[in-house]
């Protein structure tokens, strides 16, 4: 489903070139649950951004769902993200002036998939995540765990193939963090591919496979 071979990525900070990824080889199969571990600055977020079509590699080979995305325009990449990927972030990034339901519906605005009754589907998702009484609440009225569950519902509304989570438990206490990870585990059991970036060793138990990235290279790759 996702294939990277010798992928490199460098940034320019002023005149200075910084190589963040120094040749990543990686295959992620459909239905996998990958935990991507690494310290700050190891390149794990950059790798996630490349996989999530938010960023472009500098060198190497990258296939997303069998497509070579190298030459594709920003707009086509946006369409592909909308169709195939659900994002979950550490800071939740819900729009403050919309209620939970409306936040969940945002990807539908940009979707050309014909999702039937998106409002009903969004309500079902929120109910399933225990937010039945929070459907019309604004993010400011929700706890961190609740906000993150709304964000996960938003990631799922458009029926993506893969969920990419960037430190999803980073802003939550450990109990709530476990609940969120458990939710990912259930979604994975239902068939979603999940890739989760974290620096918290405790959450790695939830994944099927753990990757450790160090200094721009994958240093460990083992199955749980």
């Amino acid at each position, binding site marked *: 489903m996702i294939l990277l071979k010798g992928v490199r990525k460098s940034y320019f900070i002023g005149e200075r070139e910084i190589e963040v990824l120094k040749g990543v080889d990686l295959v992620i199969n459909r239905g996998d649950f990958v935990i991507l571990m690494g310290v700050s600055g190891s390149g794990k977020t950059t790798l996630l*951004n490349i996989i999530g079509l938010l960023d472009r590699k500098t060198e190497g080979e990258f296939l997303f769902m069998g497509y070579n995305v190298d030459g594709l325009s920003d*707009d086509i990449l946006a369409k592909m993200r*909308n*169709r195939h990927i659900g994002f979950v972030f550490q800071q939740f*990034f819900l729009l403050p002036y919309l209620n939970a339901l409306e936040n969940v519906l945002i990807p539908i605005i*940009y979707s050309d998939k014909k999702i039937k009754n998106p409002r009903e589907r969004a309500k079902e998702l929120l109910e399933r995540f225990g937010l039945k009484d929070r459907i019309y609440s604004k993010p400011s009225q929700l706890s961190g765990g609740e906000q993150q569950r709304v964000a996960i519902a938003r990631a799922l509304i458009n029926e993506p193939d893969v969920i990419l989570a960037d430190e999803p438990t980073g802003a939550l206490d450990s109990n709530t963090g476990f609940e969120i990870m458990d939710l990912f585990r259930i979604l994975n059991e239902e068939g979603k591919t999940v890739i989760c970036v974290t620096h918290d060793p405790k959450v790695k138990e939830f994944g099927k496979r753990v990757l450790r990235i160090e200094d721009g290279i994958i240093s460990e790759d083992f199955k749980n």
Partner: protein
Amino acid sequence: MLEVLLFHLEIALRNILVHKKRMVLALLGILFAVMSLVAFGNISSGLKAKIELEISRFGENLIILRAGIFHVAGRTQAQFSEARTLKIEDVKRLKDSVTEIEEVVPFFDVSYPLRFKEKKVTATIVGAESSVFKLRNVDVSYGRFFTREEEANLDRKAVIGFKIYENLFSPEDPIGKFVLIYRVPTEIIGVMGEKGSDFFGQDQDILVYMPLATFMRRYSNVDYIKGAYIKVRDGVSLSHMKHKIRSFIRSARKMRDEEKDDFSVFTVEDVLKTREEGIRLVSILTIIASIISFLIGGLGIFAIMLLSVTERKTEIGIRRAVGSTKRDIIFQFLAESTVVSVLGGILGIGAGLMVTTIVDIIGGFPFILAFKTLIFSISVCVVIGILAGIYPALKGTKYEPVDVLSNQLF
């Protein structure tokens, strides 16, 4: 597509509600621009309607001939000299000789006090033939006009203006009562309806109409007239007729070229001209003022949108991440700036209508809704909203999800 548009509009409205104070500031320029435009459009339409009303009140297709030199400008007519040379025969011949003339009504007017019992009131007494009532659209609300027979008999009968009735008689019934004019008892036979001032500022409600012959022989004992109302046929150019009448009178009097006129000819158009110039000046000033207001309003929206875009870069990032294209982002912010602008326009229309109502009540104009101005204002608002939103919207597309969403640099 429509659903997406509605969603964007809804989001725009929510954002306005979230940032009320800021949005009000952004709206103000547009609000004032539209307010002045709408108020001006309505008021000038009201003014035009009032002028038309005044023309009909004054009498259509009327030319006024007056002995002496008059100068007409705006609402005033200033008399520079008197003349006792205009004779009734002059104007009668005018009617027979100039085919475009439908009717000529000679008159003799003078300001003089009217007495009734101990009360005294100054009136403008107009001696005129009975056809004056039709010519000047005079309506008698109570009683009747005098007749041709009464004119021929030199009857001492008078039709009085509404204020005269109020000041001398009210609540008494004036019909059949006698007032003293030049110490001559004169019978009241009719009261005119309330009319206000005519074009030349003459208060119609202090007029007293009497038969011309009676007035000339039995009251003031003169053989000259003060002037004549001349009605020309429909479709005849009034300014052309003005010249024709002037040259006719000059030649009838055998006046030599170097001799100056001792009479004046003027029309309602002379008054209209100065008034239209006034309206035109005001309209130019209003348009300049609202252009400036629109520019300021546009800048206000521009600034607020720029601020909004900068503040909402995470929102842009998340939208881009979940599949919004750059075009969608541009569309969203253009929709927002347009909503702000149009909202300002709608509030401006409301304010403009309020101003119109107040001015109409004070100025006594009929309330007229200048529908075209409303449509025009809203269209301008849409254009301003889009123009003001372009740069902020483009700026919004510069925010990449990678830059605004990541916790860490790498």
